[in-house]
């Protein structure tokens, strides 16, 4: 097996996406398996193949910050990308990678984990596709079958702008945005955060290429894009900037998963209309257990200051009707809560909506 290494350094942001797509689209039997290492020359947002632009991104904010948005052919959710990340992109013949998606992730993530470890960061692979340090995520990964190729993408996370990521996503309320922001702080990390400062990029690349050689048991052959690939990049640059591509409809409901912070951790918001008013619940869930919760809306809850106490009481509760009802009923009894037109069952109904689609 031959593997070509495209160490392209900083590239125009658009081409940090279109290059690997182009290698995949142009792949024929003579194309070597390819690993590309790139970083974008400016920040941008990137949405998943099946997402809808308007539903995922706060376009007004992006316009005000001059942040472009692209759509990739790889799955997953909207992400903020900039030169704080070294993108690692595999474009391989399908028959040179495992058949099962789970095993492809294992092959791809191994060298990234080993690179972090060589830097002194105790990273590990959390299946399906997360790289964690402790319980914090350090970079995401994704896969797509494109033409003859299987494409696997991920990154080494030197630094990350949590504020811009949280601000640029379209969310249903500012409470939701606050929770997303806090959750990214709690559940994401970077090389800089772990080590105090990021080591030189070239030194990290050298470690990474060594780990890739060991894992793949091949020499990486430095190379460049072919003429055909270059022409395909140009064609894809046009397509990726076209409104038709960017605004294509998919029908994937954005609230189906809320905002996935990392595998198993999700921020969601749901509403329930009770006779006494609207109940809105905003929560961070870990494996469907409430980690953090905010209750709001226009219903009456007396004494008002106990609402926060109820939120605390519901932490660590599983999203199960019986468990939630037991906690809420007990809270109502012991605190003599009055909420006209809003029963404990209404609160349970609102909370259960957080699990829609899980």
């Amino acid at each position, binding site marked *: 097996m031959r593997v070509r290494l495209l160490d392209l350094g900083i590239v125009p942001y658009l081409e940090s996406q279109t290059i690997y797509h182009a290698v995949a689209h142009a792949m024929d039997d003579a194309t070597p398996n390819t690993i590309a290492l790139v970083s974008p020359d400016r920040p941008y947002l990137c949405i*998943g*193949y*099946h997402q809808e632009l308007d539903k995922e991104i706060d376009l007004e904010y992006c316009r005000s910050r001059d942040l472009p948005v692209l759509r990739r*052919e*790889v*799955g*997953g959710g909207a992400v903020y990308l900039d030169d704080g990340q070294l993108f690692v992109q595999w474009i391989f013949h399908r028959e040179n*990678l*495992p*058949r*099962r*998606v*789970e*095993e*492809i*992730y294992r092959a791809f993530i191994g060298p990234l984990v080993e690179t972090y470890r060589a830097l002194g960061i105790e990273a590990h692979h959390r299946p*399906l*596709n997360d790289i964690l340090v402790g319980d914090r995520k350090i970079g*995401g*990964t*994704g*896969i*797509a*079958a494109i033409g003859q190729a299987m494409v696997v993408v991920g990154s080494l996370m030197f630094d990350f702008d949590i504020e811009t990521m949280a601000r640029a996503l379209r969310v249903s309320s500012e409470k939701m945005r606050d929770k997303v922001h806090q959750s990214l702080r709690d559940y994401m990390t970077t090389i800089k955060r772990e080590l105090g400062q990021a080591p030189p990029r070239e030194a990290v690349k050298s470690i990474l290429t060594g780990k890739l050689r060991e894992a793949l048991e091949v020499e990486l052959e430095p190379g460049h894009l072919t003429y055909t690939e270059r022409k395909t990049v140009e064609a894809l640059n046009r397509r990726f900037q076209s409104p038709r591509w960017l605004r294509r409809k*998919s*029908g*994937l409901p954005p609230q189906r998963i809320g905002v996935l912070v990392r595998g198993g951790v999700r921020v969601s918001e749901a509403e329930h209309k009770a006779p006494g008013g609207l109940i809105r619940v905003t929560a961070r869930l870990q494996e469907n257990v409430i980690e953090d919760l905010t209750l709001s809306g226009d219903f009456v809850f007396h004494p008002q200051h106990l609402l926060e106490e109820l939120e605390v009481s519901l932490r660590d509760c599983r999203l199960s009707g019986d468990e939630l009802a037991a906690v809420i009923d007990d809270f109502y009894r012991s605190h003599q809560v009055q909420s006209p037109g809003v029963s404990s069952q209404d609160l349970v109904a609102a909370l259960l909506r957080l699990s829609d689609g899980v």
Partner: protein
Amino acid sequence: MAQVREFHLPDHLFYDRKEHTWARLEEDRVRVGLDAFGACAAGMVAYIKLSPVGRRVEKGRAFGSLEAGKYVGPLKAPVGGAIVAINQEVLTNPGLLNVDHYEKGWLVVIAPANLAADIANLAHGPDVRPWLEAEVAEYEQKGMLKKDEERQCE
């Protein structure tokens, strides 16, 4: 019925050997889905997008796409023709593709344009078992399928 390891492929269906889609002949229509091997390879399917009824699709070209665990891949037609029905149930419950590959997990129905030619190179009947055995053996040999004791797709 061809059964190799956890994968069972009914031998009355026709299979695209590369894409692992199946085709079932139903009078003048062809019902299409993803076989057990293909569904296992993708993992738990989270989202399916299908081309609308009326759209013409060529054999080997995509009639939709699926997303599973941040993997996105095309669904390619084993026969060409016009799509005359799509499975709304699998769109709202994509997991059907993983648990009921050949009945509730079907994807589209195609009115074939050139059926005899299109099915000629699909695996069928007595061809299914040897093809599946060879496919599984190849992936086991390359370490691309987990060993017996670690199976996860049953």
